[in-house]
């Protein structure tokens, strides 16, 4: 009897120990990055240009703009596809082999590591389509990466819409397309929003898939003769994102050590904010369905 008590005590301590280790690791990593990085994050750092020379300005404005480019372009490409796919899976398709195949493919996509996406994007978009290292080929690669994330959340959101809404719409004489786009989709918006925020988090933090598709040397602001060429021409230029910049400046050792720390802190805070948004959006969804 006593041996068992000791064993229980031992296992209980082990469980508490593991949980504490998990928390300490988390707090340790976040704390270390923020404590060392935050003092260097200021308005000048966030809004000035970057030059690779030793004593040049070391701001991250170009990287922020590039990140925004990649995020917006990727979402423009991916969101319609994901929503269309999720609508097909939940509203149109009959359960069977086709649906199983699509679900399986989505699951496989979410398991492929980003370095493989990078190689694929390099072979297809950079070399075959002749897009070279550019924000466009990076976004096309990221589009495939985030398909499973948005498809899954959208699918769940669409499934959560009560059938009565659908039936009500159909009974009033609306066609299936009208019911889907006019009634079901708006009801599922909060869920879709969560998916999109999660996807943004993934794009912002992504490095390996972008390393071979947008390159690490695009440290300049969009420029051109007029606003049109500046805005759209930038899509075909290399664009260093925040995460890539962190990797590059940490590995190169050319920048003063405060640069990667400050970049890491900025990135971390960005990810936290997105995480919070995702939690808020899904909280809203839960309330709405209750």
């Amino acid at each position, binding site marked *: 009897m006593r041996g068992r008590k000791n064993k229980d005590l031992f296992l209980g301590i082990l469980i*508490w120990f593991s949980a504490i280790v998990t928390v300490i690791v988390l707090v340790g990593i976040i704390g270390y990055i923020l404590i060392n990085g935050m003092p260097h994050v200021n308005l000048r750092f966030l809004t000035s240009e970057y030059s690779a020379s030793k004593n040049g300005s070391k701001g991250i404005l170009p990287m922020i703009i590039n990140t925004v480019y990649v995020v917006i372009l990727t979402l423009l490409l991916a969101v319609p596809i994901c929503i269309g796919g999720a609508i097909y899976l939940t509203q149109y398709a009959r359960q069977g082999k086709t649906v199983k195949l699509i679900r399986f493919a989505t699951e496989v996509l979410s398991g492929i590591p980003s370095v493989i996406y990078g190689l694929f994007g390099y072979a297809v978009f950079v070399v075959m389509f002749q897009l070279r290292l550019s924000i466009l080929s990076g976004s096309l690669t990221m589009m495939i990466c985030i398909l499973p994330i948005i498809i899954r959340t959208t699918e769940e959101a669409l499934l959560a819409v009560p059938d009565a809404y659908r039936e009500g719409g159909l009974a009033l004489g609306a066609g299936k397309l009208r019911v889907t786009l006019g009634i079901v989709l708006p009801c599922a918006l909060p869920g879709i929003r969560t998916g999109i925020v999660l996807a943004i988090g993934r794009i912002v933090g992504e490095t390996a898939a972008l390393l071979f598709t947008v390159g690490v040397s695009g440290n300049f602001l969009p420029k051109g003769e007029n606003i049109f*060429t500046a805005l759209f021409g930038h899509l075909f230029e290399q664009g260093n994102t925040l995460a890539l910049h962190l990797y590059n400046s940490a590995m190169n050792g050319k920048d003063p050590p405060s640069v990667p720390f400050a970049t890491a802190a900025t990135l971390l805070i960005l990810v936290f904010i997105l995480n919070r948004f995702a939690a808020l959006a899904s909280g809203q969804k839960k309330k709405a369905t209750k």
Partner: protein
Amino acid sequence: MVLLLIKHYTLSSVAFFLGFVSAVVQTAFSSSLREAFIGQGVERFSSWMGYGWTLFLFFSLIASACALFLSGIENTAENIFKLTAFISVGAVGLITVYMFVSGIPAIAKIGFFDFVFGTRWAPVGTEVSFGILNMILASIFGCIGAIMIGVPIGLLTAVFLAEIAPKRLASIIRPAVELLAGIPSVIYGFWGMKVLVPSIREFSTKIGYNSTGSGLAAVIIILSIMILPTIIRVAETALRSVPESYTEAALALGNTKISTIFSVQIPAARSGILAGIILGVGRAIGETMAVIMVAGNIVQFPSLFSSVRPMTAGIAFEMGYAEAGLHRQALFAIGLILFIFIMFVNLSFSYLSGKGVRADARQKK
């Protein structure tokens, strides 16, 4: 009458097919037109759009117009939704095909056994040699080590969250674990580079090794931290889905809470826990950025305190400077080997998740 006899998709699919063929032909010949593509910004866009892809778009438009005309807006919409749904299937197909197409040539040239079991990796120089055994071993050892550290801690944390923790505490720790899953891998790598590597260096000099600190030990620790959230999430879901009656029966027979957990609940949840471990393996083998920043990147037989280079790091490290030719092809071949590993892991996960684990447990990465 004739039009009605044609099934509505025949015409449109013919147009679509024509467009696609012309697009592919144009792309295939475009390497000879490479000079034409040197241009800036918008000019490059127009030349990229060359006649093949313009034709593709044109025929696709005709196809959709035909479909609209012949089958009405409802069917058209359904077909469009269907098309978008199949894009992920197409993507998986394309990735598989491309990994094989770009990986096979190097393996064929080097020879499968020399490639996979060769121990000398010297891609540049006069006597080139492409043997990736040491990279494969580094990947596998790193993964095994991460599983050995990460799984016990993750599983026990999952037990803590599911059974032991007071509700308040669990509701603080659970979002924290989610946060851990959301941190970009490059930040893990940076932390490892700044904190882990120096402390391992100090530790190894203390016990008599002379090392830089980067190496298998750092890789293992970083990877075991990174797979924690995956394992915790999946294991917690699995533990929670164990029927209440099992637990109650065990408690009624006089078991303590702890012994119920270890002798009833964990065995009952084992297929779910195994699925979590497999997911963790997939993440650990495929992880690139965090690994490349702490591994040291010298290709040699992996040992704890000396520099190693796992497969993923090998690809990412050399893609930057590899010249087109056998070197780059060899990197794609490493990618192919990695891809085959990952597909194997994926398929076993799907097999297990068919056996009662909810597939959405792997949500978010």
